[in-house]
Each structure stands twice: as C-alpha cells, then as structure tokens.
C-alpha cells in the first residue's frame, strides 16, 4: 500500500534543501569577487541580489522546517533531485538579470546546462557578456561536475545520513573507506587539477597571443568546462575562437581526465599503474573510441570534407573525443554538422550516447555498463557453445577481479534502457516540432547524455516546450534516473497515498 508522506518527511526534505540553498549562495561570492576585480558594477549588483535571495530562501526553510529526524533513503533521493532543480532556479537568477537571456526559462536552461555539465547554450550576444557572468556559467560546471551533494558532503557534513545522498547523485563508488573522505578527495583532486589545468592553459593562452589577464580567465574557464566535461566557453565560436592546435590538444587531455573514473585515477596514482590497461571501463572506452572513430573516419572520407589528414584529424577526432567524454567542445560551427553525412552523425551520436566512465564528471550510459553487457553476452554465447556440463563464470576487472553476476547485468541493463528511452523521447519531441529525425536524435542525445554538441536546433528561438524537454533530459541524465524516479514516486504518494 502506498503511504502518504508525513509532515516530518517534508520537513526533513525542506530543511536540507535550505542548506543546499545557502551553499549555492556562498558559491556566488566567487563570481561576485570576479565582478569586483573587473569593476563590473551591474554584475556585482546582480550577484548580490542572487546571494541575498539564496540566503533568505535557505534560512527561511531552516527556520520553519528545522528537524532532527534522520534522513531515510527516499528522503535522500528526493533531496538530491530537488537540490538540482533548486540549483537551476537560483543559478538562473544572475544570468537572467544580466539581460543576455530572452526569458527566465532560457536562463534556467543555461543554468541546468551548466550544473548538469551539458554545455548547450541559449545565451545571446555571448561575446559581450561580462567576465563575472561567464565565470559563473563555468563555475556551475565545476560544481555540477564534482556534484552539488559531494560538495555539500565536504563542507556541511553533520550527519552520517548524508551518505545516502551520495548515491543519488549518480556516484556509487567509494574511493576512500568512507563517503565523506571520498567526497573530500574528489573535491581536493578537482582543485589540484584546477590549479595545474588553469596554469597550463594560461601558458598556452600567452603563447597563442592572449594578454595575461585574459589568458588567466580563459585558462580557468576552459579548464572548468573541459575537466568537468561541460563545454561552455567565453566566446560564441567555442574552441574555434582560439584557432589553436595547442588548445585543442590540452583540452582533449583534460576532457579525457574528466571522463576517467576518479577511483581508478586514485588507484593508478597511489599503487597500481597497470590498472590503466586492465580495467573494464578503460578497455571499453578505448575500444569504443576506436570503433566510433573508424565509423566517423570512413564517413568523412567518403565525402572528402577535409583537405588533408591533419584537418581530418583535428576536426574529426576532436569532435569525437568531445562527444565521447560528454564535453561538447567544438572546433566547427553547429551548421557544419549538417554537412556531415548520416554515417558521420551516427558515429557522433553513438559516442555521445555511450559517454565516459562511472564516478567521473561525464554523463550518458557510461562504458562500464556497455562492458558488462558485452561480458554478459559473451557468457551466454559460451554457455551455448560449450558442453552443458561445463561451468561458465565470466569475470571482469574493475579495480579488483569480480565475478559477473546477474545483479550486475540487471542494473546495467535497466540504466541503459532508461537512457535509450530518454534519447528517443527527446527525439520524438524534436520531430513533433518539425525537425528531421537524425537532427532531433542528435540534439536529444546531446542533452540527455550531458554532452552539449549541437547541430543547430538549440537556440533562443526554439519552442519553449522543447527547451523544457531538454532541461528535464539534462537533469534526469545527470542524476541517472534513480533519484528522479524517487521524486516522481514521492509526488505520486502525496497525491494518491493513504494515511
């Protein structure tokens, strides 16, 4: 029997949402500081309004819903999914006030795209956007890439019950013995990478003719979007703005680092270097890149679109790595995708749909699930081929050697099916508004897989319903469904539950 939630359930949820609101307000001090640095008075005012509003909202919830009740699993899931919606609304306030978005819906789209590390943008006149707003757009990717809850766990931890929320944010692996130290480790490693990444991109910026001040800002923003597999840039031309192979190589490295499992990176760094060649996720990622690049290569070669191998590699491989890691950086214009043939588009869609590794900043299905499905298929084929008396036990290596069990296959299959359904749902909505099937599927996969590549559908002029569809896709795709389904279940129990 479905039970109606008690008042105490709502209090637990709203009290913790209040805390997240304050955390988001605190984060807005960073772009405020950038605004002060660049004397951007309007932006200072906009961020001040947003900060005070976040605090008022947060303290209001804390004041009226303060409770000592322990968080249960379903509370944790609802808190996670609502936190991301709250982040979208609060994050959208300064963007809307900037005047670079035609509606609040557009700024919500931008904020969700940032937090979900997607990278699709509806910003208008991006090339004249103040540095502080741009910094905020990129910071949302840094926060979302690490995880709002992971950051909350690092700063606001007061109860072991928070641990349940960690799972709700599409992270189910512990790097260190407990979740809090794992969350802190993820934050620390991201900050270390941030310093190294910003420094190296700043040096490249200086080599490529940027001024020091601009090189630092570009370096910081590019790193935040590359490592967190986001895809925003300061300029409307995206990576093409820089006309630089050095920027392309370096962002490729950071995109790949962001797409590799943090636990695996930790294992490689502290103990076992060989893990890089043994882990099922890395192997699957490697083979998937090879296969999709072959598809793309054949397709682009058929049309002879690029004059030499360097051009072919810079345009083809860069787009593919960007798609596969779920970043969305692009060194071609959106309409140029339309000059690619269907096979090339298919290759990019497959790469976007698969994504990177679990416990990383990337979205989409993730390579471990594809690897597990392949192992499951191999096991079934072996069972058919080998004599009936033989015992077939398929194993896979993911940090440790693990025997493949039905529960692994079940959870992988469920998530894969959910993602495929989400990709096609967006494609159907796109087709409903008159866009061709392949273009709709491309854009939908990009939104749901938190990629950010666009073939031109995403624009301020697109229908509002499609914008809302993509927002839902970005949100559900980033959280990997469980917490989203729990939220729907919770709402349903409020309506239909029995006392």
């Amino acid at each position: 029997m479905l039970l109606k939630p008690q008042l105490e359930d709502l209090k637990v949820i709203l009290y913790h949402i209040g805390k997240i609101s304050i955390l988001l307000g605190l984060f807005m001090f960073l772009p405020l500081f950038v605004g002060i640095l660049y004397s951007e008075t309007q932006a200072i005012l906009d961020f001040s309004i947003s900060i005070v509003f976040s605090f008022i909202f947060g303290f209001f919830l804390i004041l009226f819903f303060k409770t000592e009740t322990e968080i249960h699993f379903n509370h944790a899931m609802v808190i996670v999914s609502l936190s991301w919606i709250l982040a979208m609304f609060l994050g959208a306030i300064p963007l809307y006030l900037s005047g670079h978005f035609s509606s609040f819906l557009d700024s919500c789209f931008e904020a969700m795209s940032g937090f979900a590390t997607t990278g699709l943008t509806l910003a208008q006149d991006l090339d004249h956007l103040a540095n502080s707003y741009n910094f905020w757009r990129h910071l949302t990717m840094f926060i979302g890439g690490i995880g709002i809850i992971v950051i909350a766990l690092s700063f606001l931890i007061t109860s072991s019950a928070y641990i349940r929320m960690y799972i709700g944010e599409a992270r189910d692996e512990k790097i260190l013995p407990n979740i809090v130290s794992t969350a802190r480790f993820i934050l620390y490693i991201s900050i270390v990478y941030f310093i190294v990444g910003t420094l190296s991109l700043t040096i490249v910026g200086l080599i490529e003719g940027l001024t020091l001040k601009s090189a630092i800002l570009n370096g910081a923003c590019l790193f935040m979007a590359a490592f967190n597999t986001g895809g925003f840039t300061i300029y409307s031309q995206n990576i093409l703005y820089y006309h630089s192979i050095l920027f392309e190589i370096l962002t490729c490295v950071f995109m790949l680092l962001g797409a590799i499992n943090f636990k695996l990176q930790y294992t490689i760094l502290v103990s076992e270097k060989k893990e890089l060649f043994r882990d099922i996720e890395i192997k699957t990622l490697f083979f998937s890149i090879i296969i999709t690049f072959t598809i793309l290569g054949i397709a682009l070669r058929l049309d002879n679109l690029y004059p030499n191998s360097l051009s072919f590699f810079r345009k083809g491989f860069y787009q593919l790595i960007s798609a596969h890691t779920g970043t969305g950086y692009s060194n071609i214009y959106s309409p140029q995708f339309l000059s690619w043939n269907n096979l090339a588009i298919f290759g990019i869609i497959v790469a976007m749909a698969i994504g990177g590794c679990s416990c990383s900043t990337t979205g989409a299905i993730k390579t471990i699930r594809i690897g597990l499905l392949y192992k499951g298929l191999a096991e079934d084929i072996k069972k058919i081929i080998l004599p009936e008396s033989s015992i077939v036990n398929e194993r896979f290596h993911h940090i440790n050697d693990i025997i493949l069990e039905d529960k692994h296959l079940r959870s992988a299959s469920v998530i894969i099916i959910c993602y495929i359904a989400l990709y096609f749902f967006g494609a159907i909505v796109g087709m409903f508004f008159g866009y061709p099937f392949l273009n709709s599927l491309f854009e939908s996969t990009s939104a749901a897989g938190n990629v950010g590549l666009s073939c031109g559908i995403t624009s301020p002029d697109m229908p509002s319903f499609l914008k809302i569809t993509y927002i839902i896709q970005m949100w559900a795709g980033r959280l990997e469904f469980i917490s989203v389904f729990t939220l729907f279940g919770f709402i349903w129990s409020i309506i239909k539950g029995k006392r």
Partner: protein
Amino acid sequence: MVNNKGKKIKLFLFFIVLINYFIFFSFAQVSSKDLIENPDKYDQKEIVYKGEAIGEVMVRKDYSWVNVKDNYYAIGVWAKKELTKDIITGDYTKTGDILEIKGVFNKSCILHGGDLDIHANEIKILERSKKRKIELDIKKIKVLIILSLVFILEVLFLWKKKLKI
C-alpha cells in the same frame, strides 16, 4: 588652359574612384550565415565580409587572428600583423571596431587545420569602437535593499530562537 587641366585631373580622379568602386564591389559581400551554410559556393573565392571585431587580436609571429562577428556568427580572419595593429576589439565594456574585410574564404583551410576562415588582403575600419552603455538599474538597487532588510530580520529571528544550522 588651367581650367581644362583641372577638368582633366578631376575626370582622371573620377575614373580612378570608379575603377576602385567596381573592383571593390566585384567581390561578393556575404554574411557569416551564407558562408557557414553554403561554404562550397564561396570556397577559395574572394569575398567582402563585414562585422565587429570581438575578443582580442591574437598575434602569431608575422600574422594575427581576429574574430569578426556579424549578425549571425563570428568568423576567424587571418591577416598580416600590420593590418590588425590598430583594431580595437569588443567586449563587455565596449563594442569592437566595425571592419570590412576583403579576402579569400576557406571552407576548410589547409594552413589552419581545416578551420573555416578568411585570409584577409585588406581590412578597413568602417566604424570605431564605442563604449557600451551600461547603466545601474535603480529598480535592482531597490530590490537589493528590500531583500537585505528581509535577510537581516531573518537572521535576527534565527539568532533570537538560537537555532543552529
């Protein structure tokens, strides 16, 4: 006699202007939308492209990149350093110079790793950079004051209730 000579000079100058005018307009003036959506039509052809210089001029040895945006997209323009040295680019505080570029369009440039770009032969500054009008919105200041008061009241209330976050 002097008058006749003057007339001849004027006529000569008129023809020079006329010839230049025809040379100039023999190049097709196109938008970025045209170039990006129909790249084959303009590939390796001389074009005239007009737009605002944005970002910053990036010097690469004897040449430099300047990205020029019209109403649709920004396109990279590759030009000799001397041609770009006076250009002021647009950002949050100012609009960039409005430029008219005469050059060769490449749908995927061999020299620049397949970039869609324009190799400029001539760059003309049509309009100089202007300061953008950024005014403080009084309404926003009022909203901030009201919100701040609400926040202070809330904090006082929290403090009075001795509520721990």
